[in-house]
């Protein structure tokens, strides 16, 4: 749009600043209150800074839930899902991109049903399935339903199609088998897509709550989000804000840090996840 440096432009700059500050305020105040001593409440004195800075809230928040286990579970689940997803979406993505077989379109449609009916609304039946498979209250229950990703398959299919088929033919003439073709032709040329998919997948699994709260009971196999839920109940129904915010930041920090490193990538990946 025609961009003249005039009065409107200054107003727009100010507006941008105000909205951004409003948006960042919850995080900003969460950090401030998390390092503020509980003896120095927000309602008394300076609203921004307490008289001193303390880590006591973090210590207490750490004691109120078994965070080491929660972190371990979340990391294992994130990795356990991602690794298997990468394998399944590469295989299926290649088949749908480059192979001709009977029923291809119908099978692709069957796959798309996963995008149409989000797992969220099927939690109760999937809970029964997990009990029948004897996986209730295990980390497997947090991973297995996500091992297949229709979104990932579509993404890989699209990416693989853009790779010139001549490269594959050349590799075949050199005697490469399918595994080698994937490893030396398709996968190396699709690294940006894999990174994009990984960011979306990591963020989705790290953030999972409802399914995890339903399918696990034992603290050791529960992810960080359930720890936050427990902390909320434990901090006097969430009124000990210093501790609650310390715990919240412990849960959100890995993603915020990851985001700071991969800012552009993240935004692009999320855009493609919406486009599925």
């Amino acid at each position, binding site marked *: *749009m*025609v961009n003249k440096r005039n009065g409107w432009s200054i107003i*727009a*700059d100010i507006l*941008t600043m105000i909205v*951004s500050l409003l*948006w960042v305020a*919850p*995080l900003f*105040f969460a950090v401030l209150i998390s390092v503020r001593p509980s003896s120095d409440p*927000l*309602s008394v004195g300076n*609203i921004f800074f307490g008289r001193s800075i303390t880590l006591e809230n973090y210590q207490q928040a750490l004691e109120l839930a078994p965070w080491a286990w929660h972190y371990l579970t979340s990391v294992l689940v994130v990795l356990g899902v991602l690794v298997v997803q990468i*394998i399944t979406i590469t*295989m*299926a993505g290649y088949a749908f991109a480059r*192979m*001709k*077989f009977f029923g291809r379109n119908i099978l692709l449609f069957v*796959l798309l*049903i*996963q995008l*149409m*009916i989000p*797992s*969220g*609304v*099927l*939690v*109760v*039946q999937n809970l029964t399935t997990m009990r029948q498979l004897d996986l209730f209250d295990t980390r497997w229950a947090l991973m297995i*339903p996500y*091992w*297949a990703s229709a979104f990932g398959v579509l993404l890989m299919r699209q990416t693989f199609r853009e790779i010139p088929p001549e490269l594959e033919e050349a590799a075949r003439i050199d005697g490469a088998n399918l595994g080698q073709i994937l490893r030396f032709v398709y996968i190396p040329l699709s690294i940006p897509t894999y990174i994009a998919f990984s960011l979306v997948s990591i*963020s989705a699994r790290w*953030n*999972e*709550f409802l399914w995890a*709260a*339903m399918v696990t009971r034992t603290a050791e196999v529960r992810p*960080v*989000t359930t720890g*936050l*839920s427990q902390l*909320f109940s434990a901090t006097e129904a*969430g*009124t000990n*804000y210093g501790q*609650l*915010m310390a*715990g*919240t930041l412990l849960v*959100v920090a890995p*993603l*915020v840090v990851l*985001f700071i490193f991969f*800012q552009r990538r*993240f935004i692009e990946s*999320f855009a493609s996840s*919406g486009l599925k």
Partner: protein
Amino acid sequence: MAQTQSAVQVTHIAQTHRLKRPQWRHILPYLLIAPTLILVGLFTIYPTIRTLEQSLYEPGASTRDERGRRVQEPDTFVGFQNYADLFITQDPPHPIVGSFLQVLGNTIVFAVVTVGVTLPLSFGLALLMNRAVRGRALWRFSLFYPVLLPLIGGASMWAFLYGNTGGLINIVLRSLGIPTQDWLNTPDLVLWSVIVVNIWKQAGFYMIFYLAGLQAIPKDIYEAAALDGASYFQQLFSITVPLLRRTTLFLLVIASTYAFQTVEQLDVLNRGMPANRSNMLLWYIYQIYPSAQARGYVNAISMVLVVILLTFTFINFAFFERKDDDGQ
């Protein structure tokens, strides 16, 4: 014509291969997609069918025999009775799902308001961010980071802002001499408080689609319009908005679909209380499913959600069917 040719070619290749390595080439694609399809079958298709089926049954009572062992009575087929119990108001209210209509209403209000406010807002934000503005990376971080947070984590930050006595908003209001509100315990306020959290969380997400859309509009259209003397707002409403129609429609669908399944924030924002005024369908399911007698209802409510979501998906397909999805 070209298709016939390539089909002939394919058959030809298939035949020559069959001579060398029978079967393998035909089975391979199925082997490659099998893991994905089996998992989709097990965790999407099978549960959908079971949900539909069980929504037509009333669960049998679970009793104990003389030795104290649990005996499960068989389920009774009741047709659409479970749905009738959900949608037809009874007096006194149904003991398990008496508040369903209230909850459905909340969910619809939540979805309509969240989407109705977030989309114009994110369009505005995209216009602001689509300018040469100093510190853009920082502003972009501010607007986009909520998208990444776990919903329960983002909501937990707001639980602090909304707190009645120690919450930030009320502290600020008190210091300014403005009457405070109990944001999460006032029946007429609580749903709006929850809506604000979701607007905050999603605006940055939809903004990036509008940004992409804005950047795809050729600059010379605006130059031509400016030469014709069109003002900024004339350009905005006669060029930008119409050209982004498809983006808006697309966002309308994904935002609505998303809104119907977002409930995790409720865990730290008063759990649907007071009086179910902020309760929403998926959270409602989560609340009533432990009761064995609720099983039929839980499945019926899930089906209601499936139908709502499928409706949006079909709108999506009808409007946005992409032609690159087939052949090559």
